[in-house]
């Protein structure tokens, strides 16, 4: 059935009030709720983080309670990610906007009994930050985690039911597609995208409007639109959350891109490791077809567009655009030289536009609200917002979206709630295996594409890993090199051999087998790889090493010259030592030592001979007085 603007408006009207209850302040939401069929709405996060914490059990408990009590005016909605993954499973009750964290099935029963039926909010189950000292309950937007955030790409995540297209339509969904198809020429769309300043959120930051313009101007009957959802950076889950929470935003944007460049077929290349995201995307595509937003003659304008999902199969290099396309073609996912760029010769040899999930998530709103609105957010060169997956040694692990130009300090200390266990901030890693580590001296750097590049890191796709003083920077550099070494596709030798050699050099440092000259070798090899590798994987593989070497040089020197790892992470540089104060001389350790490295008389402190010790750790495991430690 062809979708018309009247039908679209009708669906929006029908669902608008229901969804708006979740977006208004409590007093207005309560008023709004009276116009809907539901007195209460219970939103449960169904993202990967909360599902892993057991949110499906919470949903089951809520549903069975509601059924048992025959509550017909209570609605349960499974949404995408709210962002605060560390506190999952997360449950929000509207119209009050009560934010329950770390909810258990037992807690869910209490929420129904006491809150929904009894009208008494279970204050002890709420996220503590939302309960003011005087007992007043604060809206989520007033908590530190949310106060500085600005949600554009994540606008609908945690608000709508991603498996219900009508809730997406209720918040102006598919209106941008209608506007583009009926009111704008292809060039006008490109002008808006250019003026908005939107740049690729996959890492490199190429202006989206320019990419589309290139592809549009390339002659060709058949063109393709692709979406890169092969989010391979370890520690990054922005794209997954968008697909899980708001899949229609991506579908709508791809259709808009299709119209703009003149394509009628699109592909979403998504990691097979993201089963929830794949399921929701499948459901969303089917619904979009059913409602006439995909398929033939969309909005009766004669524009045809359809989408297909292709699953990745666990190859990091497929996040590189040419490798991704080769993989969709059913081949080994190896990159190829550019030029020709995909906009000229891409998927199946045809002109292709490839954007990342988060980039697409911005498109419809730019069309609706205008380029001026979007370009008013952010910094001179980087417009809009950026989503970060905040992880590692940070209190509020989760998904955050901030305007470009927000400083690292604001993200770590205010939104992230600081470093847990009273530890000190040491470095932040952005850009994954292609990025670098930012030390504490640069914590006030405003985050945008240029300033991150200037300090030796990169925006990357948005993984932001916080490290504290217990992290060894040499070990981290080695960790990333192990990753790129394993993921190097092997097509070009600078990457295949370079990553391996670089890893060997680092490995030697962590084992105490290197000299200061090796640092020069690392620098030289890195410089070669940067210019001679075929694709970004190899060109940037040395970034984690180069940036840690730049900011934590003394740590490398400490490993090499003093054979010492201050963070106590590099096992080969550590020695087991017995604390003479704590040792009671029970002889248990010396009797258990497989190599006889421990000597000492009964009831006198024992001693470990480092030259004999094989570091099996049996002495530490066996000691009843906690006298054995690593130094």
């Amino acid at each position, binding site marked *: 059935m062809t979708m018309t603007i009247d039908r679209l408006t009708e669906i929006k009207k029908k669902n608008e009030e229901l969804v708006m209850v979740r977006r208004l302040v409590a007093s207005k939401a309560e008023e709004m709720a009276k116009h809907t069929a539901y007195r209460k709405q219970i939103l449960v996060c169904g993202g*990967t983080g909360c599902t892993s914490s057991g949110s499906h059990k919470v949903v089951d408990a809520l549903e069975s309670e509601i059924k048992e009590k025959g509550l017909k005016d209570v609605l349960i909605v499974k949404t995408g990610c709210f962002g605060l993954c*560390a506190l999952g499973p997360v449950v929000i009750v509207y119209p009050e906007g009560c934010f329950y964290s770390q909810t258990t099935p037992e807690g869910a029963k209490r929420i129904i009994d006491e809150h929904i039926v009894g009208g008494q909010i279970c204050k002890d189950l709420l996220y503590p930050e939302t309960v003011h000292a005087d007992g007043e309950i604060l809206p989520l937007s007033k908590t530190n985690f949310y106060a500085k955030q600005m949600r554009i790409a994540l606008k609908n995540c945690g608000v709508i039911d991603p498996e219900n297209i009508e809730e997406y339509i209720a918040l102006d969904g598919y209106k941008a597609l209608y506007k583009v198809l009926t009111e704008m020429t292809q060039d006008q769309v490109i002008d808006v995208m250019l003026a908005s300043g939107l740049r690729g959120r996959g890492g490199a930051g190429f202006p989206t409007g320019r990419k589309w313009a290139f592809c549009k101007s390339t002659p060709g009957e058949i063109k393709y639109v692709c979406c890169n959802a092969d989010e391979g950076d370890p520690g990054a889950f922005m794209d997954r959350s968008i697909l899980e929470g708001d899949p229609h935003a991506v579908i709508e944007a791809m259709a808009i891109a299709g119209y703009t460049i003149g394509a009628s077929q699109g592909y979403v290349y998504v990691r097979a*490791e993201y089963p929830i995201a794949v399921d929701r995307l499948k459901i969303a595509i089917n619904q979009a077809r059913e409602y006439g937003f995909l398929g033939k003659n969309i909005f009766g304008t004669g524009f045809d567009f359809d989408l297909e999902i*292709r699953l990745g*199969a666990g*190859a990091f290099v497929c996040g590189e655009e040419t490798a991704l396309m080769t993989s*969709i073609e059913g081949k080994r996912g190896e990159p190829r030289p550019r030029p020709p760029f995909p906009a000229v010769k891409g998927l199946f040899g045809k002109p292709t536009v490839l954007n990342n999930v988060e980039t697409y998530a911005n498109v419809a709103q730019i069309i609706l609200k205008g380029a001026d609105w979007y370009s008013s957010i952010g910094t001179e060169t980087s417009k809009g917002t950026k989503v970060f997956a905040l*992880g*590692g040694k940070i209190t509020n692990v989760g998904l955050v979206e901030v305007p470009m130009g927000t400083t690292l300090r604001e993200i770590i200390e205010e939104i992230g709630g600081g470093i847990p266990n009273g530890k000190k901030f040491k470095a932040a890693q952005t850009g994954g295996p292609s990025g670098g580590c930012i030390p504490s001296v640069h914590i006030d750097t405003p985050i945008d594409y240029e300033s991150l590049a200037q300090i030796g890191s990169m925006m990357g796709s948005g993984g932001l890993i916080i490290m504290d003083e217990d992290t060894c920077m040499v070990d981290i550099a080695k960790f990333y090199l192990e990753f790129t070494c394993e993921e190097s596709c092997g097509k070009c030798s600078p990457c295949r051999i370079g990553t391996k050699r670089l890893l060997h050099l680092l490995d030697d440092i962590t084992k105490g087998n290197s000299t200061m000259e090796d640092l020069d070798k690392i620098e030289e090899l890195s410089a070669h790889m940067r210019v001679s590798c075929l694709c970004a994987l190899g060109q940037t593989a040395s970034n984690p090493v180069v940036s840690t070497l730049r900011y934590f040089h003394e740590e490398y020197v400490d490993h090499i010259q003093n054979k010492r790892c201050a963070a106590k992470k590099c096992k080969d540089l550590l020695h087991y030592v017995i604390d003479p104060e704590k040792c009671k001389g029970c002889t248990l350790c010396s009797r258990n030592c497989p190599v006889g490295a421990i000597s000492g008389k009964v009831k006198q402190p024992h001693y470990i001979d480092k030259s004999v010790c094989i570091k099996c750790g049996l002495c530490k495991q066996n000691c009843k007085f906690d006298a054995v430690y690593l130094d």
Partner: protein
Amino acid sequence: MANIAFRGTPKQERELRRFIRKHKDQPGALMPVLQEAQGIYGYLPRQVQQIIADEMGIPLAQVFGVATFYSQFTLTPKGEHTISVCLGTACYVKGADKILAAIEKRLGIKAGECTPDGLFSIDSCRCLGACGLAPVMTVDGEVYGKCTPESAVEIIESYYEEV
């Protein structure tokens, strides 16, 4: 591993051939076909690759080339229970390496291997995106978050009790 006899059934073969016939004309069909085949058989032994090559009319070498390129595809069978330890950055800085070591020690095998009784196999994987729960492991797709070396071993034990 390699000498484990192939125990494919005619029913599995029919299912695979049916899928291939339906999809082989769509562009880039080999990946979805391999994914389906692994879903049916659990792994991609030579016999299965041969069926795919014959049915799609492409050389066996091409099938092998793609199957060995992607880490999702495996040419050897997995254990009855597959354990996967996330070694993504967020998990790594929170001690995922120690969890993997504890599991390897408990089962007496290394990552990528299968126990001799065929009950367990261990894999390391790259970021499941459940970084909020780091460090994370999965057993048969069930996610266990905020693991410690001790709790990880306990989880394995609980599967032994089930057997």
